């Protein structure tokens, strides 16, 4: 799966988990622009695990690991590689 496909699929997951987000900017701050918090990020990661069939370890649940949705996409890409 290439990065564009990952982004498209991730955008769908974000839309499901965070329906209040109308358009995903992969470079924008997830906390300041989208109000993502530690709990909502974990909900999103659980959905990502299911959609991409990947698993995140417990340290990878930290909000500080992801400034942007692009960072999350990069982590997914690493796991799929």
């Amino acid at each position, binding site marked *: 799966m290439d990065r564009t496909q990952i982004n498209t699929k991730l955008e769908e997951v974000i839309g499901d988990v965070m329906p209040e987000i109308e358009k995903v900017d992969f470079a924008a701050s997830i906390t300041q622009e989208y*109000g993502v*918090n*530690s*709990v*909502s990020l*974990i*909900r999103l990661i*659980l959905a990502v695990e299911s959609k991409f069939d990947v698993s995140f370890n*417990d*340290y990878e*649940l*930290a909000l500080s690991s992801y400034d942007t949705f692009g960072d999350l996409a990069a982590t997914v890409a690493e796991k799929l590689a």
Partner: protein
Amino acid sequence: MADIKKLPVTYPMITSWQWHATLFSILSDDENAKKWIFSNYIQLRCYHIQEIFTGDDMLFADMMPGSSSLKQCPYLVYSLMTKEQIESYCGNIIDFVIKTIDLDGYVYGVFDEAKILCDAEVDYKFPHELFIYGYDRDKEEFYVGDFTFQDHYGYNTVSFSDLERGWEVISAKEDHMFKDADNGKRGLYVIMKNSEMPVYDVDLELIKQNLKEYLNSEDTKDHFRMLRNRFDDTTFGIKVYDKALAQVEKQLHAEEPDFDIRALHIMYDHKVLMYERIKYLMDHGYLKFNQETLDAYATVVKNMLAARNLLVRISITDEIEAASRFKTYFNAAKEKEVNVLFEILAELEEK
């Protein structure tokens, strides 16, 4: 009077409880205040209470100083205003808040946030502390800091009318900031930053004493008998780990596991602040710079965060079997923290 005024705020270093988020919003960036902040907030304590909204058993944990920090911090001028005073001086809450902000006073008090959040009439109340730091007359909005609006601490706006509704319906009994200490009154706190004159130095003696009491889980309440002598059954220091773990295990084995992770939030914030304290003491020559010590304490922070986040995950997925990993992270944090802090205490004792 200005049309818009915002008093300065910085996103707080720690956010676990509204009183900490408020104090750190005002003082986080202030170099004088850091000397007081890093000399305090070392001891942890916890005790069981009935949750204010649900009545459920809750393990209440906090750093010391706790909610009284707003009164005790030497860099804040703190005034109580009763509802009667507010109405007598200004006629209504909106004018009082605007005039207070015009005089550089932050406002802090209990409002019914159910009235603020819900457009429709609701038959329940959610009394919660709100921190108000600015206003916009044109938009008829106040600038506020709170947890409720985004499920985490953030800065938002509340309309004048919603704030007024949230204020009017709170009774003295529901004003939990006033009810214990102020004999059935209700009202607001006015807080002014007053940090231009340095009045507090880094207190190595206090830091050493607090570290000893934290590491030995010593009962420190006797230091504060002048201020308070009604005590709950309190656990102090490193033993807070044991109490928190016991509470998590109790929740894990409940018929319908329902996790209250607030004690873990404060424990995580305690580690974040301790890391910043160690770094500050090294940066300012109170401790020798030692990257290994910083790295070792960073793993404490990392493991406490992993423990907290894993519990959030378990609470969503019901993967109860993952609880063994929670204990591993939690115990690793405890063991490493004890080792690092004993080393730091030994170095401070040599001074």
